[in-house]
């Protein structure tokens, strides 16, 4: 059975009040805090998709979101996902209309699981990414909300499966144990999730070296891998990473400049 589908590499940008946060150290950028310029740069370098998480604290500031989403859509020629504080079908309509391809839903999907179904019914499940933050406690993976501050009763694998049946088109799984450690992705949990789901899984949390990406696609069986600081600080460049993965028989999109 042939299959030429490529593994995806996805830089993630946190945006607050219309500006990217986390010290971004990119050579050659006039304004490293400008989400549009950064998105353009990543697209040029071979990113396969982008994820933007809006972490603005207030509703007022979040209104600026639609402005930069539209600017990104104008400038960038690859798909992108927008998440952060999306809690209604109307929020989704506004963001997709501004030009985003997908939305990422996290806490709102747990508070109101039918939201996933409502969005999928209206816009199709291909635009619904269900983001799940989870932490391994002994043998149990607990789901957290509110940026990892609040523990829920939900168990990771059961919730991922339920999200799929409710209408999610992809799962973005962040392992809180791995996040920020640069010690590699949560391979066992990813592999298990991947076997239980029939929708794509995006792995997040733990990327620290090129070999971690090889592992996440082979041992972790992920369809896509998301990372932030390793790309932002230039520790790993997308072109180098892609050629490394090809050398290891992992197919990614080639740019052919």
């Amino acid at each position, binding site marked *: *059975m*042939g*299959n*030429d*589908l*490529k593994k*995806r590499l996805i830089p993630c940008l946190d945006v607050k009040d219309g500006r990217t946060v986390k010290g971004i150290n990119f050579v050659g950028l006039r304004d490293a805090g400008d989400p549009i310029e950064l998105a353009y740069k990543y*697209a040029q370098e071979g990113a*396969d998709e982008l994820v933007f998480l809006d972490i603005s604290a207030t509703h007022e500031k979040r209104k600026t979101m639609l402005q930069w989403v539209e600017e990104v*859509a*104008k*400038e960038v*020629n*690859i*798909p992108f996902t927008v998440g952060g504080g999306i809690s209604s079908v109307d929020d989704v309509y506004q963001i*997709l*209309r*501004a*030009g985003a*391809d997908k939305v990422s839903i996290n806490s709102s999907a747990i508070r109101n699981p039918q939201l996933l179904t409502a969005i999928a019914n209206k*816009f*199709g*499940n*291909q635009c619904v990414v269900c983001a799940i933050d989870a932490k391994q406690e002994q043998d149990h993976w607990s789901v957290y909300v509110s940026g990892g501050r609040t523990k829920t009763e939900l168990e990771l694998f059961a919730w991922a499966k339920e999200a799929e049946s409710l209408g999610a*088109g*992809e799962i973005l799984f962040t392992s809180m144990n791995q996040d920020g450690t640069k010690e590699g992705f949560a391979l066992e949990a990813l592999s298990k999730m991947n076997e239980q*789901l*029939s*929708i*794509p899984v995006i792995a997040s949390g733990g990327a620290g070296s090129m070999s971690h990406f090889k592992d996440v696609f082979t041992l972790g069986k992920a*369809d*896509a891998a998301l990372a932030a600081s390793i790309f932002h600080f230039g520790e790993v460049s997308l072109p180098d990473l892609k050629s490394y993965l090809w050398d290891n028989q992992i197919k*990614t*999109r*080639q*740019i*052919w400049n």
Partner: protein
Amino acid sequence: MKVGIIDYEAGNVRSVQFAFDRIGVNPIISNSNDELKSCDKVIFPGVGEASSAMTALRKTGLDQLIPNLKQDVLGVCLGMQLMCNHTEEGDTRGLEIFNTSVKKFEPGLKVPHMGWNSIWEKSIFMKGKGVPDDLDMYFVHSYYAELCEHTIFETDYGIPFSSGLKKDNFYGFQFHPEKSGAWGEQLLKYFLDA
């Protein structure tokens, strides 16, 4: 050159509009039969569900207009699927331009087929234009058009299917050229030059 994007409440016309803006063509977005007829090139986009999209086309008579257009028409994603004979999605009769049927992907691989996949050229569209053999385009779909005599691009996802179709002045891309990086924009330019 006047490029018209068909607006029929099915999907994201703005992404397509922005892509043409980036390659220096400012398209119009319209559901008016007269206005679309006056365009040099017509784009028929589409995201969503097939039977409701066909209903939306019928409301404005676009189902009659599209197959009778004489200028070049490019269907993208669901637009391309609706230009086929029939789709299993909602058991929907299509515009019967491309002589093929649209089926649901069998269980086994993940659905939707989402991400970058190779398009293999089966007929002359880009040949001799310095395009690399193994070109990746961005796909998002759960149904596929079977191979047929109108296939110009073939893609493999468990089963080989039509990722590009061409018959006379009608073209179809299953992938999203507007989201497929610089080469996607290049394919839009080739369509404008065709």
